[in-house]
């Protein structure tokens, strides 16, 4: 394949990193690592490399997000795949001298598993990476996101060339249907069917829109894909445009993602310069260009109709979806809206075939496109596990594998209690269901959802009522307020949850809460309201006894709800070390060196600092 060879480019524009080096230092430039100074480390590396005269042998590449964000800043030394973590500027001179000059990797900077065994040098042998399978994130950490050459060198835009030169739009649609790819934004609607409906819908022009308005707290897969591999999204969009017969694309991206925005802008400009966007792409008479639309940061604008309203310049409020946006979308014209991750999955499906893709995952989609979940899904694994970060796993992997093998188990050796999937409006899944295979339908069956892929692990110090209250509180702030059940219902749910947490709830409030949550779920106008009660309903389903303890016994079993707990010190465990006394902001702790401490309940504000600082586990919460 040739990529517009007639496009003359000055020699120096071609990335110098593509060949000729014996070692590549792939330093992460995702938001988390940039925040922990990876650009400073880059300077330090380059300085040291130059000092040792290795500048012609070793290249430093700033890559997209590596995924292992908790260990940042991280760096992978290629081609040996040596993984370094928690780098600081101080480490660099030693590291360069030892590894780059003398060829001796530095174990002190490598990943050590929680069990305390020896350091693991190779990235692919670290538990966090071992069970992952990368499709959407296939170029993760392997290229500089700001270089189109490197993307092309990794088979980039080959899928677009293939559809334009070898396939008809109908064939592309058929391929997508056969692949069984379902929307990664949360709804799980079969992508191929959506493209087909949009292709057949009357009305010109048609639009291709990419939803990059990722708003779930703690979820950042879309940001990471755009930051790390923006061209894969553009290529996916171009293929979608060809399939549905559109020439105009939009990316709706939230304003809070400055780095993603900057890289996307660069990617679009580069693709235009390479004639991969614009008029007459691959000289096949196909025109397609992409514009960026920045969202102002409303969670509800991730909902398709609200997103389109916002793009049209109206308030970002959803409308009833009895008439679908593929037929009447942006400016009332047929519009195909997919999520970032969905588009990123498209090029490999085209290149490697629907059969290959359908071979990964659960169920059977050969007859019913809803019959299974195919491919992989990116999750942002956060909460009380050792290894937090972004993981891409095949559909059908169990929650246990994600939490314990990839996540490395619970922190501080605490007991696993539940995992919340699907973002703020997802549900909580208890320990009994840890062996649940993760796919669209299984998660929905147990009262949660895939959502956009947030995964928050909780341990026995998390109170489920408090968790539900936290998410509802978030959703109240993000509800647009258009329809009654969501606006008033969530406010009332919050009021009841507050009563329960404060110990002022009356008998019967659990039943009322359940009734109300069901109405909000069934009667709300859009999916935000429709899924908002999930945290309440799923915690009620699996942890009802915890609610009952709050209401009937006025007790918070997890020791979280401040109105229902008291702090005291276990005289048997206290060594009289004074640490808690020194840290108490209220001077509520009495005691002397080597004298058992006591807490004055009247002064105590239940902030929990004493428990956190006590090295002997002597602070009791009841």
């Amino acid at each position: 394949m040739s990529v517009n060879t007639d496009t003359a480019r000055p020699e120096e524009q071609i990335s110098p990193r593509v060949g000729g080096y014996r070692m590549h230092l792939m330093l992460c430039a995702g938001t988390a690592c940039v925040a922990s100074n990876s650009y400073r480390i880059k300077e330090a590396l380059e300085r040291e490399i130059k000092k040792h005269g290795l500048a012609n042998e070793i290249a430093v590449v700033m890559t997209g997000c590596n995924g292992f964000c908790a260990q940042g800043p991280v760096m992978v030394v290629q081609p040996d795949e040596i993984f370094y973590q928690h780098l600081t500027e101080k480490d660099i001179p030693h590291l360069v001298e030892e590894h780059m000059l003398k060829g001796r990797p530095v174990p002190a900077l490598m990943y050590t598993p929680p069990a305390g065994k020896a350091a693991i040098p190779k990235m692919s042998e670290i538990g966090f990476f071992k069970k992952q399978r990368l499709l959407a994130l296939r170029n993760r950490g392997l290229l500089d996101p700001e270089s189109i050459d490197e993307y092309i060198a990794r088979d980039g835009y080959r899928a677009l060339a293939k559809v334009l030169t070898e396939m008809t739009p109908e064939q592309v649609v058929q391929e997508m249907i056969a692949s069984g790819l379902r929307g990664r934004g949360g709804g799980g609607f079969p992508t191929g069917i959506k493209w087909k409906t949009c292709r057949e819908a009357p009305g010109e022009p048609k639009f291709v829109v990419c939803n990059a308005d990722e708003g779930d707290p703690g979820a950042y897969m879309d940001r990471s894909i755009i930051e790390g591999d923006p061209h894969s999204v553009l290529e996916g969009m171009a293929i979608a445009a060809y399939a549905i017969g559109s020439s105009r694309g939009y990316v709706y991206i939230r304003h809070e993602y400055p780095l993603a925005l900057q890289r996307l802008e660069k990617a679009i400009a580069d693709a235009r310069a390479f004639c991969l966007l614009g008029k007459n792409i691959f000289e096949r008479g196909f025109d397609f260009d992409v514009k960026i639309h920045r969202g102002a940061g409303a969670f509800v604008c991730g909902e398709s109709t609200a997103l389109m309203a916002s793009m049209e310049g109206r308030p970002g409020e959803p409308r009833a979806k009895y008439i679908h946006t593929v037929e009447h979308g942006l400016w009332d014209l047929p519009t195909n809206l997919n999520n970032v991750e969905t588009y990123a999955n498209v090029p490999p499906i085209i290149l490697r075939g629907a059969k290959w893709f359908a071979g990964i995952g659960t169920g059977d989609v050969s007859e019913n496109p809803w019959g299974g979940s195919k491919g992989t899904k990116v999750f942002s694994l956060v909460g009380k596990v050792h290894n937090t970060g972004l993981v891409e796993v095949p559909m059908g992997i169990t929650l246990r594998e994600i939490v314990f093998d990839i996540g490395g188990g619970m922190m501080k050796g605490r007991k696993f209690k539940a995992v919340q999937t699907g973002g703020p409006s997802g549900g909580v899944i208890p320990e009994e269901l840890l062996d649940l295979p993760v796919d669209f339908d299984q998660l929905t069956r147990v009262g949660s959802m895939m959502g956009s892929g947030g995964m928050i692990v909780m341990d026995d110090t998390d109170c489920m009522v408090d968790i539900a209250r936290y998410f509802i509180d978030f959703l109240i702030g993000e509800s647009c307020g258009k329809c009654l059940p969501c606006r008033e219902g969530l406010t009332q749910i919050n009021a009841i949850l507050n009563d329960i947490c404060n110990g002022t709830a009356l008998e019967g409030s659990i039943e009322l809460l359940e009734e109300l949550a069901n109405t909000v779920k069934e009667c709300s106008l859009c999916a935000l309201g429709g899924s908002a009660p999930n945290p309440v309903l799923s915690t009620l389903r699996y942890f009802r006894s915890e609610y009952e303890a709050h209401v009937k016994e006025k007790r918070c079993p997890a020791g979280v709800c401040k109105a229902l707990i008291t702090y005291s010190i276990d005289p048997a465990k206290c060594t009289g070390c004074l640490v808690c006394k020194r840290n108490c902001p209220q001077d509520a702790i009495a005691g002397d060196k080597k004298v058992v401490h006591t807490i004055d309940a009247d002064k105590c504000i239940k902030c929990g600092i004493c428990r956190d600082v006590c090295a002997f586990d002597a602070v009791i919460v009841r």
Partner: protein
Amino acid sequence: MKIDGREAKAEHRAPLLGAIRSLGIHVPTLCHLDGLEPYGVCRMCVVEVKRGKRTRLVTSCNFPSEEGLEVFTDTERVRQHRKIMAELLLARCPNVPYVQELARSVGVEKSRFRMVEASDCVMCGLCVRVCDQIVGASALSFIDRGNQRVVGTPWYVDDGACIACGACSYVCPTGAMHMEEQTTERWRRELAADQRICRYARMGLVSYKICPNDFRCSECDVDQRLFEEHGTHPVLAVAPGQRSKPRPVGPFLVVEDRCYSRSHAWVKMTGGHARIGIDDFALQLLGPVEQVTVHSRKDAAVKTGDAAVTVVARGRRMTLRFPVAGTVAGLNETVLADPAMLAQDCYDRGWILRIRPTDFYTQSRLLIGRDDVASWIAEQTQKLAQALGVEVARGLEPGFGAKIADKDFARLGALFLEDKPTPTMPTPMAPRTPPAPQTPPPPRTI
């Protein structure tokens, strides 16, 4: 279609509610008003629909009818949800008789929920939507979101868009919308005697009228007469805002919510600004537009008849002249960058510039008004067909402009696209009788 076991008929894709009510079945609604687009926010009108094996809960005010659909309006599930929602409403508006009555109709006397903050507004959005869709003023909006949401002028700014018609307070079911004298007070203060345009003239209900009553509409016999004639708020019966959709007149589209100059520039007044653009007639005659050049900068003072914009299509030029005098307030950069979009939408997104006019209402009397535009375009179409020597039906199909030879175009351009001001002052007129809308007032029972 079956509703509660009874056969029912409705137009394909018409909202279910009409068919349900035509059977005499009671469905409570709050945010529904005939003549407005369904909004579907009060959720009181939920019903169960069954298609094939799948049963689901939908709002009947906006769910499209469809053959073979089974509808159940009074199941246990429906009743339960309506009750909870009535309780939610009651917790928000405990003192509003309308809400109390609505709650009683679904069997709720008292709410089990805590009253958060008593309010009179049920957030049905009737006021906002009437102002936008029926009045066409778009002076009201929702502000903020979630449970902080309130109704007000956008950003709480009084931008002069309100025409003091009072339709919002007329349709408000709970009496939460009060008319304040703010706008009329300002008019009294600021407007000279000859600028005091009657509010019905601003709505387009009467052609041109100066208010002799100091804007005390309740004392005005024109106001009284219009109310009596229509049996409802006159603006609801006439619905000037619904003229904002393009409608075909012969082969061309016109929009009847604005004025036109004789050289086919349109001008539309919204909130103190007049937007100016080119109409479909001129656009079709020109053919595909390649370039749009604006001759004045922002903040420049312009007079009526000054060259405003030059539109170039395949080398042919047309100069659009300012239909009204004023100060240039802004340009539509989207159109200037992508003139091809004019072909898709020359009336709404395809505006070219906007100005702050000096005394729009007096100036607009020299233009072709909204009531006359259809007949004017029809007449122009006939003339054009004659000049081209073709029939309207066959010679003026889409894309005809591109087929006209250059020398013919020069002649046609002089005939149709140049301003030949023939101002005739419209005589101030008594209210016109609109085409007898003898409809009873919209049912506001629940």
